[in-house]
């Protein structure tokens, strides 16, 4: 039988991480009225997922599955298409950032990956504004406040992801995982 790219366990764990992201977005609402604050848990789980399943495309998979879920849950303000593409873009952004930057256990790398991944979502919003035919300057102006917020929460989410990885490593989680595989 042809060997699958993701093993059954890897596929299922990535799926559950995707669901964990959507569940966190619903269950853990921080009292912060700023755009992109949900990126805190989002980026953290995404970064942990790339270390639990250290294969190219793991984050993209999590992004696409969580995007499909969020679309059906009616999350996001700009319609289903935007929700699906922006969630997927985060995953692709994280995968690309990790290709360039390497190990997410390094807190600086994790923070940068968080920024790049979350910024990809912002770019999708910007692209949707551009597709609608609105002058790019206005779209940029409308999103100017969001951009800082997206970068900050992306960075914090990345940092949280890095700290989570270190805590998991310290607790022997990856040794446990190696046994299971």
């Amino acid at each position: 039988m042809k060997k699958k790219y993701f093993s059954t366990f890897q596929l299922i764990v990535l799926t559950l991480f995707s669901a964990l992201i959507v569940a966190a977005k619903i269950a853990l609402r921080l009292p912060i009225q700023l755009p992109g604050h949900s990126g805190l848990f989002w980026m953290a789980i995404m970064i942990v997922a790339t270390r639990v399943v250290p294969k190219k495309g793991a984050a993209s998979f999590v992004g696409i599955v969580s995007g499909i879920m969020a679309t059906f849950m009616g999350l996001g303000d700009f319609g289903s298409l935007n929700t699906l593409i922006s969630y997927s873009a985060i995953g692709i952004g994280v995968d690309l950032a990790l290709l360039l930057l390497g190990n997410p256990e390094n807190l600086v790398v994790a923070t940068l990956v968080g920024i790049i991944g979350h910024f990809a979502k912002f770019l999708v919003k910007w692209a949707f504004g551009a597709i609608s035919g609105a002058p790019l300057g206005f779209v940029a102006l409308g999103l100017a406040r969001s951009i800082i917020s997206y970068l900050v929460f992306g960075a914090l989410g990345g940092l949280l992801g890095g700290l989570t990885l270190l805590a998991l490593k310290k607790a022997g989680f990856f040794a446990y995982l190696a046994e299971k595989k």
Partner: protein
Amino acid sequence: MKWKNRKPFISTDLEEASPLRNFDPRAKLFLSLCASVVVMLPLQRLVIFLGIYIIFMIWARLFSRFLKQLDKIKWVLIFLFLVDWLVVSLQLAVEVTLRLTVVTSVFTVLIATTTPGELALALERLGLPYRFAFSIRLAFQSLSMLEQEWQAILEAQKSRGVFSDIMNIRTIFTKVGDLVSLTVPAIVLATRQAWVITESATARGFDSPMRKPYRQLSFTTRDWVLGIISAGLVLTLIFWR
């Protein structure tokens, strides 16, 4: 830490009363994709499409969903409309507003009348590997359980006094490390659950080449009619002189 009120249960909001509920998800996906092409059309044709689309939404009993979707972005639409009108022209303002209206609502037809399981089945029939279609179904089935896990972890950590201070934009920078006490148990529980599901799925022949889905989709005449009308309308609007 003070948290906002949250929904007790997670559910997708399905419009059971819509006549589109009985159509094949592939036909509805095709309809939505056709409608999303229309976004690039000039104003006159966009207005014609939107008129037909609204009549269709009323027939499909999805008009309230359409309005609900627009309500979510009303301030963005108003802002863009006013700025475009004042700085460029009224025509551009109307065009941009209508395009955003179409782009945010085109997939309502599919999402509001299809369950995630049906979508997974449709994607599988369209060539998506079974394993990935299974992932979509599994993700939805696990959602309630994981939401409860998050809440249980949150309550447990609060009772330990981890989030005794109010978390806001000023304190979040210093308190981000505390959030590890939420993410670590959630990751561990999800991984453990993944292992249990893996064992169960493997025991049931998950990777068997002889596997067949329990439910089958059938593409009937009415689905063909819906698909042909959608494609015909969009092609007419694109090539109409």
